[in-house]
């Protein structure tokens, strides 16, 4: 088989079906951009999880004098040194506990002053109004429940608070968006596949004369099908290229420049270029193989060989 002959046939085929080719390129580009976007979104979420889960911990707030008057959990009065000791030893025995820091009310007051020193509220606070607490770092941040069941409601404990649960709302939102992107991607993918099948059908019909003659002179089935399959693959690959460019531009304009989220939200650790670049080969391979396969199966139905 001569490459030049096949290539010229592909060019003729793509130009003949210019509108359909364009539709295939756009739909493949859109679906794969969404595909890549959702992959990157997952990466972003797990990067953020890694970053934040590392910093969050479970706080066990102990009752102080003012709690004893107002909070039903502290009805039995402020925490005693015995209760404090018991909590500390119990924490030490738990395998999920990685590290425990005790923060006294004085320390809590100092931290608060450091952070919000200028606010009028901070000025009115006194150290004994601040709660003392145990800051518990877990080996696995998901194991918060173990701590909660062990210490919630115990004498001297005002509350057990998991900082992770605050973050989880955010992650749930991001995950929800991710699933929406995936659903849209699946829909676009179906559209792209149907367009490819239809393009191949039209293309096979408009070239039935050529393919009929090819068959008569003994061209192999592969030789007759190859231009159609490669047409679909070329159109798909162009679409994949567009999708890649889209992702690179998105990373550039959303994170680094333009929106510049990396400057505005410097508490968040963003995905790097490596995360984007490693997705590109996958997208290109998909954009090449998926249309080629779709064309192959469409030809079995619409092209007699």
């Amino acid at each position, binding site marked *: *088989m*001569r490459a030049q*002959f096949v290539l010229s046939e592909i060019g003729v085929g793509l130009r003949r079906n210019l509108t359909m080719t364009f539709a295939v390129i756009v739909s493949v580009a859109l679906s794969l951009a969404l595909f890549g976007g959702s992959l990157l979104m997952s990466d972003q979420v797990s990067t953020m999880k890694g970053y934040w889960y590392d910093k969050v911990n479970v706080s066990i707030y102990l009752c102080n004098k003012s709690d004893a008057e107002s909070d039903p959990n502290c009805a039995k009065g402020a925490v005693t040194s015995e209760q404090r000791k018991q909590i500390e030893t119990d924490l030490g025995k738990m395998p999920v506990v990685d590290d425990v820091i005790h923060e006294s009310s004085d320390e809590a007051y100092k931290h608060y002053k450091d952070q919000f020193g200028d606010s009028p509220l901070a000025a009115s606070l006194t150290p004994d109004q601040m709660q003392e607490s145990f800051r518990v770092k877990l080996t696995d941040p998901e194991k918060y429940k173990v701590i909660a069941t062990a210490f919630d409601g115990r004498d001297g404990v005002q509350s057990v608070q998991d900082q992770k649960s605050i973050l989880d709302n955010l992650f749930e939102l991001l995950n929800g968006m991710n699933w929406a992107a995936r659903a849209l991607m699946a829909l676009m993918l179906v559209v792209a596949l149907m367009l490819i099948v239809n393009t191949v059908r039209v293309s096979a019909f408009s070239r039935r*004369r*050529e393919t*009929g*003659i*090819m*068959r*008569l*002179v*003994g*061209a*192999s*089935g592969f*030789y*007759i099908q190859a231009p159609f399959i490669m047409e679909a693959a070329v159109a798909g690959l162009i679409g994949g290229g567009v999708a890649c460019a889209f992702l690179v531009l998105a990373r550039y304009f959303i994170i680094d420049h333009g929106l510049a989220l990396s400057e505005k939200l410097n508490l968040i650790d963003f995905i790097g270029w490596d995360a984007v670049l490693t997705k590109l080969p996958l997208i290109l391979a998909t954009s090449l193989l998926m249309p080629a396969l779709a064309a192959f199966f469409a030809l079995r139905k619409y092209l007699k060989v």
Partner: protein
Amino acid sequence: MIRFDNVSKVYAKQTHAALRDVSLEVERGEFVFLVGSSGSGKSTFLRLILREERASQGQVHVLGKDLARISNWKVPQMRRQLGTVFQDFRLLPNKTVAENVAFAQEVIGKSKGEIRKSVPQVLDLVGLGGKEDRMPGELSGGEQQRVAIARAFVNRPKLLIADEPTGNLDPQTSVGIMKLLDRINRTGTTVVMATHDQNIVDQMRKRVIELEKGRLVRDQARGVYGYQH
């Protein structure tokens, strides 16, 4: 070259057979006319030889091979040893004469050098030397059929199948085409030609096979078109 053993063909969703119990043999180098009215089974006969269809019963041997036993992917290789010519020429309108002929070689992977050598040769043979760069639309019907014959013959097939090659041509042009087919036959290529053209069959005095309602009703060496004409 071709052997039919008790071949019948019933198309799907049809009750009566297109071919019924046909047995015959065509030897190497023969020139055979296939005659019969429309619907007599001529086209089915040719389609079985080309393995566009498979026989419902019986065996079809072409070029020494049982067509029922050739796997689908080997069919193209078998077809490369056959040339085909049709009433409607089946040329590619957007390719020149030379490109149309070259197409038959390109699709079976002949090298550019081979193509450059054999295309002018075969165009000379069919009497179209000098018209290599014309488009099919610029040619007369007879010339277009010559291009089709050149394309069928360029790969030097052992067997040439012609389905009413003169059906769209005037009598004088038809004679020219027949002379050409006769010449190709003399190079050793077996020719099987389905036709309605009484004059041609009567003039050529070749073997005549007549089909009627799918049955073989006459097989006559040096025959004429029909008894009743």
